[in-house]
């Protein structure tokens, strides 16, 4: 088992109880999708998994090791093993696409080398290969802010690949893209999952995408898990339970 969550709770200092007794397991090679409304705790959950946030209580066992409260160098090593892709891409706008991808490898560089930007030829070669995987190697020298949304997200995926991650997290990676682009970006996640066997945990809004790509689904509502299982088992009753009565099917399905 790659990842094991038990009774995970996260309460923010503002008093918001974002996660309530969340428990689930993730096997190696899975494509796990988390669904739920905005504010249901999806982002908080993902950020607890790679410990950008510290959970209030509960345990997270990653590769047989408790990581819920690790700090310092240990935490940095965890970040290196778990890559993350964000809704807003979070690229460095003013730098080249290639440099953006290279930042995925910062953890394996000395501080001095990275500040002087002395990337080894091997790293540059790897970065170009990562860009090749997401199909935009020809944009390597362009500035990141000249790209379109879909291209930016592909660069972000290439950056995460540069880490050679064991686990790849994606926080609503296609939520700010149009449907066609969203589908093409999701195909790259599928490719990474199938070709390299990288485990992926991804939060999504659209059920159509969930059905197409997820090997398993977890639904969150108000910080609690309300559904675990296969995407095709989500019937109308469950759908209303997760998304509320007012949501119309065609928008999300």
């Amino acid at each position, binding site marked *: 088992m790659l990842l094991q969550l038990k009774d995970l709770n996260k309460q923010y200092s503002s008093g918001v109880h974002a996660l309530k007794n969340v428990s689930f397991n993730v096997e190696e090679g899975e494509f796990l999708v988390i669904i739920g409304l905005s504010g249901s705790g999806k982002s908080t959950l993902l950020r607890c998994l790679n410990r950008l946030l510290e959970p209030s209580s509960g345990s997270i066992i990653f590769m047989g090791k408790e990581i819920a409260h690790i700090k310092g160098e240990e935490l940095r090593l965890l970040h290196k093993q778990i890559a993350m892709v964000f809704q807003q891409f979070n690229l460095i706008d003013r730098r080249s696409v290639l440099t953006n991808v290279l930042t995925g490898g910062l953890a394996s560089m000395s501080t001095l080398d990275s500040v002087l930007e002395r990337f080894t030829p091997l790293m540059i070669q790897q970065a170009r290969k990562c860009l090749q995987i997401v199909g935009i190697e020809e944009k390597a020298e362009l500035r990141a802010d000249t790209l379109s949304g879909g291209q930016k997200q592909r660069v972000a995926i290439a950056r*995460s690949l540069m880490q050679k991650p064991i686990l790849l997290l994606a926080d609503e990676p296609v939520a700010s893209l149009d449907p066609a682009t969203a589908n093409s970006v999701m195909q790259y996640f599928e490719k990474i999952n199938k070709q390299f066997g990288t485990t992926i945990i991804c939060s999504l809004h659209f059920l159509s995408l969930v059905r197409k790509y997820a090997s398993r689904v977890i639904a969150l509502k108000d910080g609690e898990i309300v559904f675990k299982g296969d995407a095709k088992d989500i019937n109308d009753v469950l759908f209303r339970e997760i998304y509320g009565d007012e949501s119309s099917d065609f928008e999300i399905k």
Partner: protein
Amino acid sequence: MKKDEIKPNKEELFVNKHIQPGDERKSGFEMKLNFLKAAFLDLFLVFYTLLILHRVIYYKLFLNLREIPFSWGQILVVLLVSIILGGLWTASRTSISAKLFGFAKNTPFSKWSVEISSWIIFDLTFIAGWVITKISIVDLFSSEGISGANRIFSAIFSPSFSIFDDALFAIIETVYLALIATVLSIPPTFVLSFLSARNLMKDNKISFALYYLLRIVFNFIRSVEPLIWAIIFSVWVGIGPYAGMIALLVHSIASNAKLYSEAIETIDQGPIEAIQATGANKIQIIWYAIVPQIILPFLSFTIYRWDINVRMATVIGLVGGGGIGTMLMQYQGLARWHEVGLIVLMIAVVVWIMDYLSAKLREAIF
């Protein structure tokens, strides 16, 4: 924990927020404290009003005395009178402070008392300011005054070019002095701005303490005018451009560190999160996620600071900070107004050029 304990109804939460004990009825202790505060404020207001009436209006305006007699005895008498009047005023619940602290009587007289006394305090303050500033329409338009103005303006507007070479060298000295002060300020400002950015320093107690200390130091340095720093450093390193440069340097670091750190505080957190998630260390996060976002604002602030420094350098020269200001002071002391005219003209031209250049440069950057 039970489920319904963790998850209260949203509406209930909303309502609970607004009902807080003591909101409707203040506790007895709070009432007494407010009354005490109001009494002190009223005492101060009455004391202030009586002091102005006595010392400015009576002595200065009414008796037109040059030297105002001073004795602690008088002040004490005024204070005693104020304590009695102020106390009565507060106790009657018709005072300004009673209104401020919310326990004033709701009567026409109470409203009238607050309004009238506010007006009196405001007017007296204005009159006192007028008298202390020695404002005199007569001085401005007397024939003696007009002829003086005539003399200086006609001299200034016909500048003497006999000292052009010296003035040119002096103003070049000023520009370079400002330039060096600005350039030397960049590295320390750069480092200090990260240490005084709230979003980077708030995570642990030691760094947060350092953040507060730096903010206090910067505020202190900025609140002391460069002119005064120049006086201090001219005693320290001797009169001349070096002292002026250090004065500007100190002031530039403190001012720009504040601006820089505010730029850091408003950056997009997304890239920081992303670089942190790759396993990068703190320095790598700063270099890759923060620096690219702040480099342009930094450059823009720095160019603007050079512009400001050139202007300040001319003033600093007046107290021996070197450059054109020192020259201006010498000729002004000799009352050689034609030469002063040239110097003023040259300062105006250089400041205008700097202003224009810095605006253009900053435009080009963004």
